[in-house]
């Protein structure tokens, strides 16, 4: 075991939040910052020949290797947890840039109510109208607090879109249901595919307000406030699951590394797997990690920042024994509590068969038509009452040939192999689309939490994180509502496109139970939630650990419940907030920032 020379700041995790925190500290102070990233180094040169569906989309080249570390899952505490042997319900990235390299690029803000959901419900409902064991909280920050940090993140990445609510003025070309913006988007929206124009017309016909979602795939060339210039998107369709070969999709390696690499006070150490935060007397003293040769290294530091994905952030705190572990029986403890996914998911559903080819292989990750008319409090109708919903739409992310081949609607052939099936698929190739599921708010509940698994271990022998997670009647109603809305939408798209609608019933992944093997979203949130009281949260609203003021825990693990949209921009916004607190206040007066 060796001990490296002490540094001022050590950051565990080289993705969006870790490298953003590194950029802020390294450029605004003279502190020496070291980022430890357990995956390989990555750069744009790795992606130039990366337009390959087999290695990237099917074999998940950009993702964490489940053989090294995975999670276990059970539905309730009386069940046996089973390891997720291949990532399914979510797909965490690895390597420098983390999931920010392979992400799709939706750069949404959360809804203003998300930040004060407990108060919001209290204003609208009696306690007995709320689901049993509901555990939602106010974040402790308001829309007014976070709005300027959202804008900073949008400028950093060069987000494109049309403001739907600019200082109170509504524009129906944008999302009129979004929280009030003080500034317009840095860039305009993308070009649209033909199928998108049909979907938008269908949505308007239905009475909804379709819009192009905010995207971090540059819609034109852009220079951000730090002077980083990048080219606009070429719509090649190799986006989600891939790194961008021209640097148009905003990724930590093309947005943040160009600045960091010019800083003498910054050092990046890839293939450095942090296993513990070292601490003594209520202060973090550094981290313990395995270097590229598998050698154990101690890195002492004045400030420690955890900037992993939700899973490793929670696990690192549990393994390091920092904070009070949540006990669902007694309700005591905070670490692992308020773990959420995103909901409103459906399987199956109708297929829309156009008469003409659509060039579906063209696209960009965030290229889509979205509808947020239901992204608010739920309705009471035949699907049953529910509290919160989300947004849905029609994507044009680019359809590669292996996925694109098997497009014939059900019933086109007697079996799903052989001559008849092949002909049906060739006939339907590039002509079939479907509308896709809701991203709805997943409420936090007392029974959904994360702790350490007593049986299964990672490649170093450390316990895996165990999720105890299942859906309640509320989430089932969210999915039933999604199905109802999508049926209307699909029928409208078929009409607008003079296309054939092939009916197929909707289902719910896992038949109403959380299924760890079926893709839902990679938007895992909570478990190291923020709040205003040390008894009820893991970190304060500056993402500073209540029990160790020189330990900061970034990212979506800090969200007390899931928002209804993609969380990356929110993770960046709270990181800006944390960076300001650390640099402007903590460094002047070490201790908890009030």
């Amino acid at each position, binding site marked *: 075991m060796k001990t490296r020379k002490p540094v001022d700041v050590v950051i565990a995790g080289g993705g969006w939040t870790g490298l953003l925190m590194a950029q802020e500290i390294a450029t605004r102070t003279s502190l020496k910052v070291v980022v430890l990233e357990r995956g390989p180094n990555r750069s744009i040169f790795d992606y*130039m020949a990366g337009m390959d569906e087999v290695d990237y989309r099917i074999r998940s080249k950009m993702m964490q290797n489940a053989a090294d570390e995975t999670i276990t899952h059970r539905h309730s505490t009386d069940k046996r947890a*089973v*390891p997720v042997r*291949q990532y399914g319900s979510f797909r965490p990235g690895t390597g420098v840039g983390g999931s920010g390299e392979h992400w799709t690029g939706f750069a949404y803000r959360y809804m203003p109510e998300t930040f004060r959901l407990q108060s919001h419900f209290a204003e609208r409902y009696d306690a007995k109208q709320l689901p049993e064991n509901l555990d939602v909280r106010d974040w402790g920050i308001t829309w007014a607090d976070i709005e300027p940090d959202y804008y900073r993140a949008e400028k950093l990445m060069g987000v494109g879109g049309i403001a739907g609510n600019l200082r109170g003025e509504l524009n129906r070309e944008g999302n009129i249901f979004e929280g009030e913006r003080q500034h317009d988007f840095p860039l305009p929206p993308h070009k649209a595919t033909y199928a998108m124009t049909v979907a938008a017309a269908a949505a308007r016909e239905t009475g909804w307000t379709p819009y192009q979602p905010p995207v971090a795939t540059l819609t034109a060339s852009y220079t951000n406030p730090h002077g980083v210039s990048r080219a606009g998107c070429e719509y090649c369709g190799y986006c989600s699951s891939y790194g961008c070969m021209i640097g148009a999709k905003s990724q930590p390696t093309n947005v943040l590394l160009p600045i960091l690499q010019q800083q003498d006070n910054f050092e990046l150490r890839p293939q450095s797997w942090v296993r513990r935060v070292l601490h003594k007397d209520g202060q973090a003293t550094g981290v313990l990690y395995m270097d590229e040769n598998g050698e154990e290294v101690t890195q002492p530091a004045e400030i420690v920042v955890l900037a992993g994905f939700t899973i490793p952030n929670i696990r690192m705190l549990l393994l390091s024994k920092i904070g009070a572990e949540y006990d669902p029986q007694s309700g005591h403890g905070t670490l692992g509590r308020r773990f959420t996914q995103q909901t409103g998911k459906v399987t199956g559903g109708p297929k829309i068969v156009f008469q003409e080819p659509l*060039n579906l292989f063209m696209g960009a990750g965030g290229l889509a038509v979205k509808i947020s008319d239901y992204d608010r409090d739920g309705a009471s109708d035949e699907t049953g009452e529910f509290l919160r919903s989300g947004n849905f739409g029609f994507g044009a992310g680019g359809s590669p040939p292996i996925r694109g081949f098997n497009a014939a609607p059900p019933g086109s052939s007697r079996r799903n192999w052989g001559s008849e099936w092949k002909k049906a698929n060739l006939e339907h190739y590039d002509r079939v689309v479907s509308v896709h599921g809701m991203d709805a708010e997943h409420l936090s509940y007392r029974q959904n939490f994360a702790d350490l698994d007593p049986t299964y271990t990672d490649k170093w022998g450390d316990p895996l994180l165990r999720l105890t997670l299942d859906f309640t009647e509320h989430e089932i109603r969210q999915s039933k509502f999604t199905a109802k809305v999508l049926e209307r939408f699909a029928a409208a798209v078929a009409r607008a496109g003079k296309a054939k609608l092939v009916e197929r019933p909707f289902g719910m992944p896992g038949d109403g139970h959380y299924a760890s093997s079926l893709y839902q979203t990679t938007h895992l949130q909570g478990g190291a939630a923020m709040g205003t009281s040390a008894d009820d949260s893991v970190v304060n609203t500056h993402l500073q650990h209540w029990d160790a003021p020189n330990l900061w825990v970034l990212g979506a693990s800090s969200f007390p419940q899931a928002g209804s949209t993609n969380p990356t921009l929110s993770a960046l916004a709270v990181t800006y907030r944390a960076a300001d607190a650390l640099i402007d206040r903590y460094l002047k007066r070490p201790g908890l920032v009030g």
Partner: protein
Amino acid sequence: MYTLAGEPKRLPAQAPESDTVELELRHFSSEQARTVQAACARILPTDDSGPGATEAGVIIYIDRQLAGPYGRDARRYTKGPWITDGWVGHGYQGKENPREIYEAGIESLGSEFADLDEEQQDARLTAVEDSLFFGMLRGHTIEGMFCDPLHGGNADLIGWQMLGFPGPVMSYKDSIEDYGKPYRPAPKSLEQIVGHPVKGMEDEDA
């Protein structure tokens, strides 16, 4: 060695005077390869709608995938205890890796499978249609038919030509708004587009 019979001028490695492509098998025995190739040819047959798995060299794709990290489950969590009687939503929990699943699956088709007539072959495949092996074989056949040729399948871009997929074109910026106009140039491989050979994960591992 394994002989991929069919049209000449298919793979760059081919000797110009030869009318077949000879490629060394990395994983299968010749007998196993014959069986797998025959089964793939029933999943994506050569018929009046166009070429099938045989012409695309799907067998080469599958052979290389199984020889590489995928075949030995290098990216799957393989620590015990193994719980195989749990809820189906937890996903595949078996101990067997793709190589072992193929091994047993090929055996289940019978050693004479490649010599049977098409109807008999279809009957045997139908009998195992719901198995893990068949699901894998079907998925891999589609992959081998429509993958980039760098992985050994889609020889001479035969699958992409049949579909009308143009390959990994770097830019559609000037054509994405040509509504109603199918974009159907002669396809190009990744190697042709970037100007140098590209290695797949299976080759990096070899």
